[in-house]
């Protein structure tokens, strides 16, 4: 497409990047077909192509106000459009640039600012989030059912393996995953332990930074990135072979550290190295001989796998987890429109509750359509979001491979979810 | 292809005179289907002298011929190159011309599986009501430039213009054809025909004459044999005669003085309750009825069945012939007629009164 960005903008690295992305777009409209919000709303402005146009006109100096902000806010950043795009448009990157630009141009109403600020100062900090979560869990029983459903019940932590192997991989400390589902990291450690690898938690790390970065607070996001790099670096130097990430939303962010910090002289090189070492846990497993893994409860288990957007579109790892589960002996049920987002999308479920709810209902129907015993996924956000709407237990798929767990026991937890509204659209 | 003659100028002159005087024209070709439609009056205008194949390029799968060209001549030329008019135009008389086949828009037994006359029309040259010679469409497989006037002419019964030349898509003849017969009740036959149509079978005709269910398969020898194994049934000898008799209405069903109705319904529709004799063609989509039941009842029953009824032959040619159009649609027809033939000189009343 033709672009007429101002010379001053075009002389900045960000402007050049935006220009090159915009010019790769040929306006064919294929992207709209797989866009969850366009599917719901049917408005070009809520499609990737429309948003690209909104960003383009803003960068070209036209008026961009609350409407542009609204439509950019409605984007899930699921990047299904990138998978569909034949022209190779890096939409997700353009969206970040566009969101940062609109944030500077349009002041949000005060309540909205407060809400976003609260999200940014609570969610990425494990301790703060834990406090909020525990209070909510305590009050859970007294809340109306609709609220109750969205608060995950407490989960007891399980133990990490004691043995230490020569081969080491690094874990991401993360933010919300440990308070909500401590078993995921433990199960990951146990699975890697079976394969002769020790999973190491580096002290000083934390949130990957994605939440802040995609909420328009890009500098905050980069600060989180730098903290993680600092925490991991000594281990990298002493021979850790990979960063094994079991939350695909974080994985996609860590893999972008190199690009995002390329203008930061003191971090660029290390960030690049970290990104190169970052692997989704499925990538790790795919490379290992998995014969030693003997997951319990197979045979009876029919799994519906919800591939998180950050896994299939962000990291382009569509089909990998499915093939690992199948080779482990699980039966996978068909999931219609498996490219669609569940509506969790970072803070989206909190900021766009109505659209998020519609997408969730669609996804749960699709996932349940094959009558699975359990639903597997690869990102904590999707996990908690899906579980809020289904009585089928939702687990991180690595837990299904955990030699210490049984799929049957998963049922108990699912049963705790009270569904008062029928799951229909 | 020596039998060619271009009389476009004479035809045009005749149209010019008629447009000037306002005296309507009664257009005819070989006269084989002049019974079809409503009775009309007017000065005869015959396209029979405007004849001959203009171009035929087997490699392009396209033939262009003048309206007065006998269908026999066209089909002979195609057969020589192992090709065919896939919609199997009914002649309904030896003198049938290409122009008549297109103006009536009738199709034979293959229609539900490969398409109707209109589906094979690529372009036409015609004379409009202002005596202008115009070309629409073309001689290539795909052409979406301008409105599809060429297909608008198909089945318009000459009420919109005088066809001069028609370009048609032709197809290679299948390597093998095989007809099978099974004995079924009418509703069973309808059901079975539609089950077959939902499966990937090489069907090219499917008809039930009240006694036997006839199914024609076509394609490569191996494909036809494989389909025979799946469908079952006795092989009909002399099959070509059977399908020819059906298409040309020589089949015994068509005998007798009762009016002949053509009832078109969604193919899977079970038998309609109209007294008379039925023959089910086109895999259930076209049903012939010999009956003296009143037109209103037949029309209503067909409509209730999701279709429409035509008084094909016999009966009162000045009364109900074609299914009535909704008022808005009829008004649109009249405006289209005015656009093509402002003086109403072409076959007025042939399709509907005031059209």
């Amino acid at each position, binding site marked *: 497409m033709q672009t007429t960005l101002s010379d001053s903008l075009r002389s900045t690295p960000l402007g050049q990047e935006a220009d090159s992305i915009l010019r790769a777009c040929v306006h064919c409209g294929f992207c709209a077909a797989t866009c969850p919000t366009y599917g719901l709303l049917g408005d070009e402005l809520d499609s990737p192509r429309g948003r690209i146009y909104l960003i383009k006109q803003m960068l070209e100096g036209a008026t961009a106000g609350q409407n542009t902000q609204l439509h950019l806010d409605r984007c899930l950043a699921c990047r299904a459009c990138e998978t569909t795009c034949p022209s190779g448009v890096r939409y997700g990157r353009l969206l970040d640039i566009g969101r940062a630009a609109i944030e500077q141009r349009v002041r949000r109403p005060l309540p909205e600012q407060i809400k976003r600020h609260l999200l940014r100062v609570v969610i990425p900090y494990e301790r703060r989030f834990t406090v909020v979560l525990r209070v909510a869990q305590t009050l859970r029983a007294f809340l109306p059912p609709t609220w109750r459903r969205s608060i995950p019940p407490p989960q007891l932590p399980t133990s990490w393996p004691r043995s230490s192997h020569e081969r080491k991989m690094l874990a991401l400390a993360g933010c919300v995953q440990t308070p909500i589902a401590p078993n995921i990291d433990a199960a990951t450690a146990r699975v890697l332990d079976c394969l002769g690898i020790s999973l190491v938690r580096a002290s000083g790390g934390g949130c990957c930074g994605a939440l802040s970065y995609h909420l328009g607070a890009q500098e905050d996001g980069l600060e989180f990135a730098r903290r993680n790099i600092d925490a991991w670096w000594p281990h990298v130097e002493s021979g850790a072979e990979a960063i094994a990430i079991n939350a695909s939303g974080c994985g996609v962010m860590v893999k972008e550290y190199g690009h995002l910090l390329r203008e930061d002289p003191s971090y660029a090189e290390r960030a690049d190295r970290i990104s190169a070492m970052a692997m989704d846990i499925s990538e790790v497993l795919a490379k290992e001989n998995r014969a030693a893994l003997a997951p319990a409860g197979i045979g009876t288990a029919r799994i519906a796998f919800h591939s998180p957007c950050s896994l299939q579109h962000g990291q382009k790892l569509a089909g990998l987890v499915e093939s690992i589960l199948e080779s482990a002996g699980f039966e996978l049920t068909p999931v219609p429109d498996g490219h669609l987002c569940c509506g969790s999308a970072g803070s989206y479920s909190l900021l766009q509750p109505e659209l998020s709810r519609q997408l969730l209902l669609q996804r749960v129907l699709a996932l349940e359509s094959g009558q699975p015993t359990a639903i597997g996924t690869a990102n904590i956000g999707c996990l908690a979001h899906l579980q809020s709407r289904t009585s089928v237990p939702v687990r991180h798929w690595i837990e299904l491979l955990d030699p210490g767990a049984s799929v049957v026991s998963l049922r108990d937890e699912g049963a705790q979810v009270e569904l008062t509204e029928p799951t229909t659209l | 292809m020596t039998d060619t003659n271009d009389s476009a100028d004479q035809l045009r002159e005749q149209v010019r005179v008629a447009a000037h005087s306002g005296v309507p024209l009664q257009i005819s070709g070989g006269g084989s289907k002049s019974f079809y439609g409503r009775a009309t009056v007017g000065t005869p205008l015959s396209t029979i002298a405007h004849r001959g194949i203009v171009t035929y390029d087997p490699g392009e799968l396209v033939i262009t011929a003048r309206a007065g060209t006998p269908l026999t001549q066209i089909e002979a030329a195609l057969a020589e190159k192992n090709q065919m008019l896939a919609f199997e135009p009914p002649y309904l008389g030896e003198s049938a011309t290409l122009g008549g086949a297109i103006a009536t828009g009738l199709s034979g037994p293959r229609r539900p599986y490969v398409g109707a006359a209109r589906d094979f029309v690529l372009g036409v040259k015609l004379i409009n009501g202002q005596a202008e010679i115009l070309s629409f469409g073309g001689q290539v497989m795909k052409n979406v430039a301008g409105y599809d006037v060429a297909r608008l002419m198909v089945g*318009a019964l000459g009420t919109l213009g005088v066809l001069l030349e028609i370009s048609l898509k032709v197809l290679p003849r299948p390597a093998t054809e095989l007809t099978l017969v099974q004995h079924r009740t009418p509703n069973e036959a309808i059901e079975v025909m539609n089950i077959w149509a939902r499966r990937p079978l090489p069907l090219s005709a499917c008809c039930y004459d009240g006694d036997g269910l006839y199914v024609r398969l076509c394609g490569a020898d191996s494909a036809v044999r494989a389909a025979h194994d799946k469908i079952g049934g006795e092989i009909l000898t002399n099959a070509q005669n059977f399908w020819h008799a059906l298409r040309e209405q020589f089949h015994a069903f068509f005998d007798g003085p009762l009016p002949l109705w053509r009832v078109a319904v969604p193919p899977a529709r079970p038998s309609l309750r109209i007294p008379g004799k039925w023959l089910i063609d086109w895999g259930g989509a076209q049903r012939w009825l010999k009956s003296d039941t009143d037109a209103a009842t037949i029309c209503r029953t067909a409509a209730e069945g999701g279709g429409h009824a035509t008084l094909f032959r016999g009966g009162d040619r000045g009364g109900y012939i074609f299914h009535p159009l909704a008022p808005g649609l009829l008004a649109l027809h009249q405006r289209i007629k005015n*656009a093509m033939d402002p003086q109403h000189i072409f076959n007025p009343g042939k399709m509907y009164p005031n059209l």
Partner: protein
Amino acid sequence: MGAIMIYCPNSPPGKTIMKTPVTNVQPRNRRELIAALQRVLPSQALLSETEDLRPYECDGLSAYCELPMLVALPDTVEQVRAVLVACHERGVPVVARGAGTGLSGGALPCSNGVLLSLAKFNRILEIDAANRTARVQPGVRNLAISQAVAHLGLYYAPDPSSQIACSIGGNVAENAGGVHCLKYGLTVHNIQMLSFLTIEGELITVGGAALDAPGYDLLAFMTGSEGLLGVIVEITVKLLPQPERAQVVLAAFDDVEKAGAAVAAIIGAGIVPAGLEMMDNLAIRAAEQFVHAGYPVDAEAILLCELDGVNEEVSEQILQVREIFQQCGATESHTARDERERALFWAGRKAAFPAVGRLAPDYYCMDGTIPRKHLARVLRRIGEMSAEAGLAVANVFHAGDGNLHPLILYDANKPGDLERTERLGAKILELCVAVGGTITGEHGVGVEKINQMCIQFSASALAQFHALKHAFDPRGLLNPGKAVPTLQRCAEYGAMHVHGGKVLFPDLERF
């Protein structure tokens, strides 16, 4: 004779041959129209701020842009009717739009008109398995129909390359084709009933649940009418049984002409492939970068020949086709190993247009159809013209039916590039007409090829088109300025292009 009475005041860039400002909508009236539409539409369904209108300024042909006065996003037929009535009463042009993937600018808005998006009409209303039809709303995506009936063993045959995104309503408006229309026909061959609203708001149904409806074949006439006659609100499509087997043979050639000869040889052998597609080297490389289908990137041309039907017949024909390829000098030919590879072969072909976006920032897609026998000659001439113009051309085409899609690569940011591209495009189309073909096989005339209509049709044929348009839309409010040029426009275009009695391509035989 009813000529179009209202024109878009601003023709697209490069096409500024005539401007007929008939803007009868003043700002005050605009406010009044907005108020009227607000009464009949939900609040989010009417866009009027420039910020919101801008992304609607073009369809899949982004070279031509025009900001609409308003955008309406109704989601019921009653709302569509109310919008049409309101516009008709006020003499406001209406441009209907589906998914906006068209490549001829058919949904280019009018600056003094309402852009009527039908994208919210995305529901499949009924699937009738026994009668093999589906009743759908116009905004349903082409591919969504086949996906919805796949479990019944059925599918909807026409498959334009944009089938993942394009809407069925747009397909009908343009009479869309696709890679399989050689055997299965265009949209017109695969629909059975249409309901549309006239500009006056009258609902008309043409065709029917039964074959060969009474009266004129308005089903065919509406198909491909590019939104100039009515606004389609419901469509009944035909469904076909999925073939028992489909197999694709890929052949590579070191010479485009040899590939052209192979196409003729296959048709000549009496084979009707389900699809027969050609791509030249530039297109092959672009598509390969996106899908990694294993296309031979150093070949001058590849042919994809799909054979489908009964298992035994497909096996026989594959052998025949491979032999023909060999005889015609293919450097390699192989059959897709499995369904995955077959899908991949097609994915590359279907994504070829936008994938060309990887080679150059912009492309301009032509759509001429020619008699197959002239394929090699026309390709050679396109190559020469491309060199003369200094603009690369990637060729992707439906070789089986002679439908060419030369993609002219250019850079819209370079001054003058678009104009040179348009001139080259015009010459390519005029070449197609000169060899007995047409300027558009399946994309529609839209605004892009409007001048070339003057070359393909006589003045009296164009006048006849206008008279027919008048029968549907006497005030000329539906999609004005598209598909059929005014005689005045043609006169001016002719004056520009034929100098001193010189005709284009004097060396070519005329038909």
